[in-house]
Every structure is written in structure tokens, then in C-alpha cells.
């Protein structure tokens, strides 16, 4: 079905991009709703007010501090459901592309399109929306109306008291926060959807700029400003390098005399993928441009050597934001990285990719560095940040196996499935861990100190048990979901790398020398997983062994507790049984669609 008529195209556009449209509606709602009843409309993030001369004071209901959070959660939930619709059997708009002119086409074969809504992109938008939803849920009970907000003094009476209460019943700050969250969601889904590098960059920047502000949002905490500055500086340098790389790719894709053929689109007859495949030997211009593009993605997934800002950002900002950085932002980096590597520069079967050595070496360094650094830190948030670095290394190993050219169709599918599945389940247990840290952080315990977890088993047994399960899942202990995802990666690497080696070689040494070197990435992964157990179990040890520094129970915060229990169930169920199969099938669908291009 090819719809050329613009009249028909516009209603369908809303249908194809239903999650994004929902978010746009949410953004409008978040701007309008808090101003309802007011004679002025405030421009978000500022103190400017535009008079509209209709109305007086704000309604009490719309200035409720909970309203923005509720809107944002609701919108994200709807968008997630809309994203998941792609995976429902019999859904019509499974694989739909949108060209620059807004034309919509089903099937996406060979033509020039810029946005693509297929199981691959929808898999990732689901991950983003889920992680952002958890972040929103964690923030909803937590943010005071002002940096120096205080409950009214008990001696206050009359007007003073009413004034103090009214001052607290204000949702300007919450409104700004959740608006930024929705911008992040929009930017991230553009990244997942786009098959055009420039559009991808715009999405990346939309998400990044919002995240820079969000990292600094909790101004109560002195370190958050510092963290955000570091994150912003490194992030913007990485973005600049990416942009420069894109400009080089653009120059390379056209010829010196004829810029008409120059394009940043990945697909299509003039697309980068076609140009890359047509190249006889690697063009230095293309290689340099390509490498520079990867720098930006490397920063997002916090791969060594672009990871230096990550631990500072995680530990400096609030735990819910660290959650978003560790799951959604990382998944965004991988969505883009995998799309670019697979669609543009995937090698022919039997030939090694140009980027194989680079990715392979980075993978080993990333996982080892992450684990060694995590071992030596006494700060739970930093530890989780470094564990996030290590996990990036595991996924890069899967990509290296993909680039070895030894992976057949089935193995390539398995490897991409593993990457997508890992990022999905990471949103369960890594989020869960940060949610528990949010709980400890809320009543003034410093979540940057291991002491805040001391004796958690005595203070709150259920949360401590949940945290322990999350740690075991991160370490990859069977039968939790963390094991399954790691297992799929290792299985893919082993299958790919031993394809040439003869499994029946006489001695073990002979056999080892007959396999492709990518096999050693699997070994490195296994060794690193064993190493990582020490610091994950250490969390268990301090929770159950050490005497607590304070015997205060953790805050009630029902929303966060529900989120933690949800994460706990998902972590366990995604490792075993029919639910895990559903998720793996989703990831397989995504992988199949990506490889079909």
C-alpha cells in the first residue's frame, strides 16, 4: 500500500507515530494545565508570563504539585502501550516508513525515507518510555515546590499560615521537570525511529539538552550542578565531534563536483549504506567521518574512553535521573549505534568489518575497566555507573562478533536479539536498583556512601531483598533475566567465532587456536562476570551484615515501592517462563526487521 495523496497521509501519520503524537499532546497539556484559570500563562522554565486577560487565580486543582507528574506518567504509559501495539499479532502498521515529504509507505523497500516505525525502533521506544516512566514515578513524591521549601511553622496562624501553604501548593517546578522528561522521550524516540543521520542527530540533541538540565535539576544538592556541568561539557564536545563526522560523511557521500548526490540518509539509492557498500577499499574520509560519528554514540553508551563523565554524573545527580541515564540514555546510544553499524557498515558474510578491531578492543577495555573501577569504589551510585560501563562492554562484544563476518543470518539475528533483550531487561533491574537508592536518598541519607545501605535488611527487609535480587540479576546469576541476556550474548559470540574452528580438534589447545579471536571476548565476558560478583555481592553483604547507621525506617513513598516490586517481578519473570519468551520473541522480531533492510 503506497499512499501518495497528502490528504490521506496526514491522518495516517498520526496513527503511525501515535506514541510520539501522544507525547506531543502531553507536552501541550503540561504547558496549559498548570496555567488554567490564571490570567497569565507562564512560559515554561522561565519567569515570563504572557497575559491573556481571562481569569484570575489558578485553580487549586491544577496547581496541585502532583498534577504534572500524573500527566507525564499517564502520557508515557499510553505511549508505551502504543509502542507495544507493534508487537501485537495482526497489527497493520508494523513496518511503516515516512519520507521527507511526509509520504507514508508500508514495507520500506529501497526508497528514500527518513523515519521508520518497525519492531526495532518500537522495541527501543518501549524501553525508553518504560525507563522514563520509572524515573517519573520515582520523582513524583519527591520534589518540593521550592529549593528552600519548608512546612508552615506550627505557631503560624491566619494569613501567614495560608500563605505558607499556598506557597507549597505550587507545581511550577514539577511542571518544568516533567516537561523536560517528555522532551527527552520525544528526542529519544526520534533517535530510535530515524534512518537519516541528521534527523538522528537532532533527536540525540533534543534528548541530550533536556537531560543536561535534568541532571542539574535538584538544586538542593550541591553536587548536581557540578555533575551537570561535567556531563554537559563532555557531552557537547562529543556531540560536536559527531556533527563534524557527519559533515565529513556528507562530503564523502557526494562527489566533489556534484553535491546533488550527497546525502546523510542511511537508506535509499544515494544513501550512506549504498555508498559504503559500493566502496572498493576503505576511503579514509569515510572512515574518519564514521569513527567521529561513533564517538557521540560511545559517549551515550559510556564506553571507555568516553565514559569519564558518567560516574560523576550518576553520583552527582539524583537517583531517578541516574536511572534514566543508565537505562534510557544508554539504550538510546545503542539504538543509534546498532542502526548505524548494521545498516550502514555491516560486512559481507566472510569478510571482516573495518570497525571490528576497534569495537573488539574497546569492548574488552570497557568491560574490564568498568569492573575494576566498580570493585574499588565505596559509593553505590558510582559502582552502578561503572557496572553500567561494564555492561556496555558486554554489548560491544556482541557487536564485535557481528562485525567478524563469521555470523550467519541466524547468528546475526541472535546477536542483535541479545543486545536488544539485554537493554530491555537492564531497564528492569538497573532501574530497580536505582529506585531502591532513591528510597534511601529521600530522607537525607547520602546515597553516595555505602553507609546508607548498611543494615538495610533490618530497616526494610522487602526493599533489601529486592535490591539483592537486582544485584544478582546484574551479576548474571541464573535463572534471573540478567543471566539470560548475558547468556544469549555469549552464545552468539561462541557460535559465530567457532564457525570456522573445528569443534572436533584433538586437543583443547588445538581447538582454541582454531577459533576466531572474537571467541576470547566471550571468555573475557565470563571472567569479567565472575569478577563483577564481588562488588555486587558486597552490596548484599553490607545490607545484611553491617549494623545500620540509623534505624529510621525508609520513607513510605508508595509509588516508588510499587515500581520496585514491579521491577522485581519483571526481573524474575523475564528470566524464566512464558513471559521471558514473549520478550525474547519481541527482540527477535526487532532483530529480524533490522537485518531485513
Amino acid at each position, binding site marked *: 500500500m503506497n499512499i501518495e495523496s497528502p490528504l490521506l497521509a496526514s491522518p495516517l501519520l498520526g496513527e503511525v507515530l501515535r506514541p510520539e503524537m501522544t507525547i506531543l499532546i502531553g507536552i501541550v497539556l503540561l504547558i496549559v494545565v498548570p496555567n488554567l484559570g490564571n490570567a497569565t500563562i507562564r512560559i515554561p522554565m522561565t519567569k515570563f508570563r504572557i497575559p491573556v486577560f481571562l481569569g484570575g487565580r489558578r485553580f487549586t486543582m491544577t496547581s496541585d504539585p502532583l498534577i504534572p507528574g500524573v500527566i507525564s506518567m499517564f502520557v508515557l504509559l499510553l505511549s508505551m502501550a502504543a509502542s507495544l501495539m507493534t508487537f501485537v499479532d495482526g497489527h497493520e502498521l508494523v513496518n511503516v516508513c515516512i519520507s521527507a515529504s511526509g509520504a507514508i509507505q508500508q514495507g520500506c523497500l529501497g526508497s528514500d525515507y527518513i523515519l521508520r516505525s518497525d519492531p526495532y525502533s518500537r522495541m527501543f521506544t518501549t524501553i525508553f518510555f518504560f525507563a522514563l516512566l520509572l524515573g517519573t514515578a520515582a520523582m513524583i513524591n519527591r520534589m518540593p515546590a521550592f529549593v528552600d521549601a519548608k512546612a508552615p511553622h506550627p505557631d503560624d496562624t491566619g494569613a501567614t499560615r495560608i500563605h505558607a501553604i499556598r506557597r507549597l501548593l505550587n507545581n511550577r517546578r514539577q511542571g518544568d521537570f516533567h516537561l523536560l522528561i517528555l522532551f527527552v522521550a520525544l528526542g529519544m524516540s526520534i533517535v530510535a525511529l530515524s534512518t537519516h543521520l541528521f534527523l538522528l542527530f537532532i533527536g540525540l540533541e533534543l534528548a541530550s539538552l533536556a537531560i543536561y538540565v535534568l541532571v542539574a535539576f535538584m538544586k538542593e544538592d550541591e553536587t548536581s550542578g557540578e555533575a551537570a556541568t561535567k556531563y554537559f561539557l563532555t557531552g557537547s564536545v562529543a556531540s560536536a565531534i559527531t556533527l563534524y563526522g557527519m559533515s565529513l560523511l556528507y562530503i564523502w557521500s557526494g562527489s566533489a563536483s556534484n553535491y546533488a548526490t550527497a546525502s546523510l540518509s542511511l537508506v535509499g539509492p544515494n544513501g550512506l549504506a549504498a555508498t559504503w557498500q559500493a566502496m572498493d577499499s576503505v576511503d579514509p574520509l569515510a572512515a574518519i567521518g564514521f569513527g567521529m560519528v561513533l564517538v557521540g554514540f560511545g559517549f551515550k553508551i559510556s564506553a571507555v574512553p568516553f565514559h569519564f563523565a558518567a560516574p560523576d554524573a550518576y553520583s552527582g545527580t539524583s537517583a531517578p535521573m541516574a536511572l534514566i541515564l543508565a537505562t534510557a540514555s544508554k539504550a538510546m546510544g545503542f539504538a543509534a549505534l546498532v542502526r548505524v553499524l548494521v545498516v550502514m557498515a555491516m560486512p559481507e558474510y566472510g569478510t571482516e568489518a573495518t570497525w571490528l578491531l576497534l569495537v573488539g578492543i574497546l569492548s574488552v577495555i570497557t568491560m574490564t575497566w568498568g569492573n575494576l573501577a566498580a570493585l574499588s569504589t565505596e559509593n553505590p551510585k558510582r559502582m552502578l555507573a561503572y557496572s553500567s560501563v561494564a555492561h556496555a562492554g558486554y554489548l560491544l562484544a556482541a557487536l564485535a562478533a557481528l562485525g567478524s563476518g563469521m555470523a550467519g543470518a541466524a547468528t546475526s539475528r541472535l546477536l542483535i536479539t541479545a543486545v536488544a533483550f539485554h537493554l530491555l531487561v537492564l531497564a528492569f533491574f538497573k532501574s530497580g536498583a536505582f529506585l531502591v537508592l532513591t528510597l534511601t536518598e529521600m530522607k537525607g541519607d547520602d546515597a553516595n556512601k555505602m553507609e546508607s545501605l548498611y543494615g538495610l535488611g533490618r530497616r526494610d527487609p522487602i526493599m533489601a531483598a529486592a535490591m539483592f535480587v537486582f544485584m544478582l540479576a546484574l551479576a548474571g546469576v541464573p*535463572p534471573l533475566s540478567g543471566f539470560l541476556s548475558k547468556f544469549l550474548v555469549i552464545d552468539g559470540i561462541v557460535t559465530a567465532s567457532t564457525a570456522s574452528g573445528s569443534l572436533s580438534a584433538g586437543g583443547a589447545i588445538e581447538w582454541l587456536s582454531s577459533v576466531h579471536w572474537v571467541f576470547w571476548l566471550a571468555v573475557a565476558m565470563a571472567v569479567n562476570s565472575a569478577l563483577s560478583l564481588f562488588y555486587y*555481592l558486597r552490596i548484599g553483604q553490607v545490607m545484611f*551484615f553491617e549494623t545500620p547507621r540509623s534505624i529510621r525506617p525508609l520513607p513510605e513513598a508508595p509509588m516508588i515501592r510499587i515500581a520496585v516490586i514491579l521491577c522485581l517481578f519483571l526481573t524474575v519473570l523475564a528470566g*524464566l517462563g512464558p513471559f521471558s*519468551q514473549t520478550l525474547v520473541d519481541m527482540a527477535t522480531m526487532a532483530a529480524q526487521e533490522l537485518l531485513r533492510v
Partner: protein
Amino acid sequence: MNSLEILTLTPLAAGLMLLFLHEIVPNQAKEKATDLIRYANLGIAIILFLLATQIGFETDWLDTWAAGNFGGQNAYILENTPVSLISSIGVTWHIGIDALSYPMVWLTTLLIPLSMLVQWDAEKGAQFHSLILIMEGALLGVFVVLDLFMFYAFWELTLVPMFFLILVWGGSDRRYAAMKFFIYTFSASILMLIGILIVYFHSAPAGGFTGTLTGHHFDMVSLMQQSTLIESAGLRMVVFLLLLVGFATKMPSVPVHTWLPDAHVQAPTAGSMLLAGVMLKMGAYGFLRIAVSFFPQETITMIPLLVFLGMASLFYGAWVCLGQTNLKRMVAYSSVSHMGLIFLGIATMQPLGIAGALFMMFAHGLISPLLFAVCGSFKHHYHTLEIGSMRGLAHHSPFMAGHMMLGWMASLGLPLLAGFVAEVAIMIAFWMTFGWWVLIPALTLILTAAYYLWSMQRTIFESSDPHRGILPDTMHGEEPRDITWHENVGMFILGGLAILFGILPAIFFDMMSNWSSGLVSEVLIDALTQLEVTP
């Protein structure tokens, strides 16, 4: 759902529910709820024991297993229709029991209610007894699953309740012991996991078991039927050794036994009973079920290593026992010593020897819990574990002294008690295979008798004053008393069974020897001919 599935899944589900129930009960009703939960746990455990016994009678195990059909398609009774658990990588819920696992299953269901009974008045009883019930589920899982992945998962799951039992209810140095126990055995099982994964990568597609994404499977029955599991002889040996390390650590065998004494001394009585009674047997069970059955050639090549490990454990364990002053530590080392006999029995490669090893697993599973129960009540009533700090136990606590006597006699291998049958079977088979080398293990058994008799003399008898005896300082003037009725019931049952199986070992010994004959004729003889060694 067949009765075996019910038997395996009930304790996990019930234990978790009861554990959670206690958390959500409001504070004012906690005390009443604790009692109810304890009774519920004990009731469920007893019902499960009856169910396990009934499984034995219902399926006529004597007839079914007498045929000695080993390994093959119909070797397992109560085998369920495999249910796919993680179909992408080929994990199935596939369970069944045979003559190797049934005695262990029965033993587990027996020991769980007894250990609850012996420590009936433990602090925080609701959590304590729920954890024991969860433990039962994990242990039964290890013995019944026929899927390597699930085997490994249950294997690790047993660590969790035991870890908390030691950590929360243990002795003064419990933190160190719990952490050492966890890290030590966990590291060893990671090596085992690597071995399992290598096996997995060599599995050929097998019908419904095969993973949709990977094309491999974890099913033990199909793996057994695969003609050549791993073609490379070198890799095969690597896998065998990896598995050996994993299983030998659990058993435990010298030199990887050092976690055991600490864990035992610090564990609560019920924990020690389960640890010695069932958890150690997991090592021997896994070794026979996976390492020996999958890699018979490597087992035969490695017989010298097995004999060495067995002899070293047997001798070293007994030797260290002689020097122990701590009662529990002595019993723990005697476990190391007896586990050495299991390796020796397997190394004989005779049906009789392997059957002896199997019976040793079972008999030790009755005797060592009895010993640990006695140690526990000794500690409970006399507040010490030092041998020689008190004399004349027989005078103050006649029942405790009686159980202690019976346990030690059974453990040192007195005829007509369960331990003797196993020891004799192993010694005869050892003589048949290795000739006069049998003198070394046989003479070591004298050491066993020596350390038991010596501590018996110093603890139970030898009172300078026939009417008072010597009471340990830790009593602080407290009047000595005898064991409580629930401890007594538990110990009587264990002691009675030790006598029963000493007089009528055939109840389990027949099917064990059938299974062993099956293992030898189906698997080991082939391997011997392939290796061109005359049996």
C-alpha cells in the same frame, strides 16, 4: 501435574508464601501468626514426607528399578511431559526420578520435618521454619530435575536459604562463616557452570528440547543418548575436571573442604543437619549423574586421582578429628572423612562399590544429622562444644548420652547399623579392584573408631564423682537437664532408622545395586573397551 511435580513445587511456593505472610501480619497478631506458621510449615513438611513415601510404594520401585534400566528413555519414573521454560535457549521443566535420586528425595523429605522438630523453639520461628521449607524445595529440585540449566539453578538456590540460616541463626562467628560458605561454594559452582555450558554448546538438536534461537539444549536425557557428546578428547577432559572441582567442593573432598568446618560450627542445628544430611550429597549425586554418566572414559582415566582424593579425605579427615576439641568440628571433619569413602567406592568401577557409595550417601544422611542434632542440643543445654569440658553426660542427660552413643557407633561402622553396610560394600569392592591397597582405607577406619571412642570416654563417662560428674564452666551454676521431647522424637526417629537400615539394608540397597549395575554395564564397560583396558 504429577505427584513428583507437586512434591517439588509445593515447598517452594508454600515456604515463600508463609515467609511473606509473616511480614504482612500486623504487629499485634505476630505472635499468634508465628505459631500458626510454624505448625503450617511442619504440617506441610510431614505431608510431603508421606507423599514421598507413597511415591515409593505406589510405583513399586523394587520391581521397576530391579530391571536396572539405566539412563535411557524409560529409565525415569514419574517423568513429566517436558514444559518449555526458556524456549529460546532450550531450557525445559523436565523432571523424573530413578534409583539414584529416589533415596535422596526420600531422605530430604524425612530430614526436613525432623530438623524443624529438633529446633522447634528457634527464635524468629516463622522465618526459620519457612526458610527450611524453601530449602526443601531447592534440594528436591536438585535431585529431580533432568535439565542441566535447572539443575544449576536449583543448585545455586540451595545456597540462599542456607546462607540466611547461618547468617541469622548461627553462632558467634556467623558472618564470617556465612560469607565464606557462600563465596567458596559459589566460586566452585561457577567452574561447574562453565563445564555445563561447554556441554551445552556441543549438544545436538533434540526435538522439542532444542532452543529456538541457539539450536542447543540442556536436557540430560537427550544428552545421555547423544553418541559422542564432545569429540575433542582434550576438551572432554577439561569439562570433566571442571565438573569434578564443582562437585568435589560440595562433597567436600580434601583439598577443597575448608568451608565445611566453619559453616558447620556456626550453623544452627537444623542447618547443620541439612548441610551434612543432604547438601553434601548433592556433590556425590551430581558427580554420578553428570560427570560419570556423561564422561565415563575420563572417569576411568582419572581413577588414580579419584582414589587419591578419596584416600586423602578419608585419612586427613580422620587424622584431624583426632586433634579436635570442638564437638561439632569433629563431627564435621568426620563427614569429610566419610565422603572420601564415596570417591573410593566410585573409583572401584564395580557395581558393588558404586552401590556401596550410594548407600554411604544415604546412611551418612541418616547418621550425621543425628550427630549434629545431639551436638546442637548439647550446645543448647550445656552452652559449650568443648570435648572434655564436661564429664559424665550419661548421668545428667541419659537420653542425650544414649543418642550420642548410638550416633557415634553408627558413624564408626558398628555392624547392624546403617554405616557398616556401606563401608563393607566399599571395602569388598575396593579389594576386588585394587587388591591389598584396601589395607589403607581399612586401617584408617581404626582411626575413626579411635577418635569417637576417645571423645565418648571423655564426654559421656569418666566422671570423677559418680554422682555429680564435672559440669562445664559455661553452665554458671545452672542445673543440667535432659533434652526436650521434640528433640527426643527427632533423634529417636533418626536412630531408629539407622538401626532399621542396618538390619534391612535391602530396602534401598537392591535398587541402588541395580542402578550401579546399569551404570557399569551400559556406560562404563563401553568406555573400558574404547580405552582398551580389560575390566
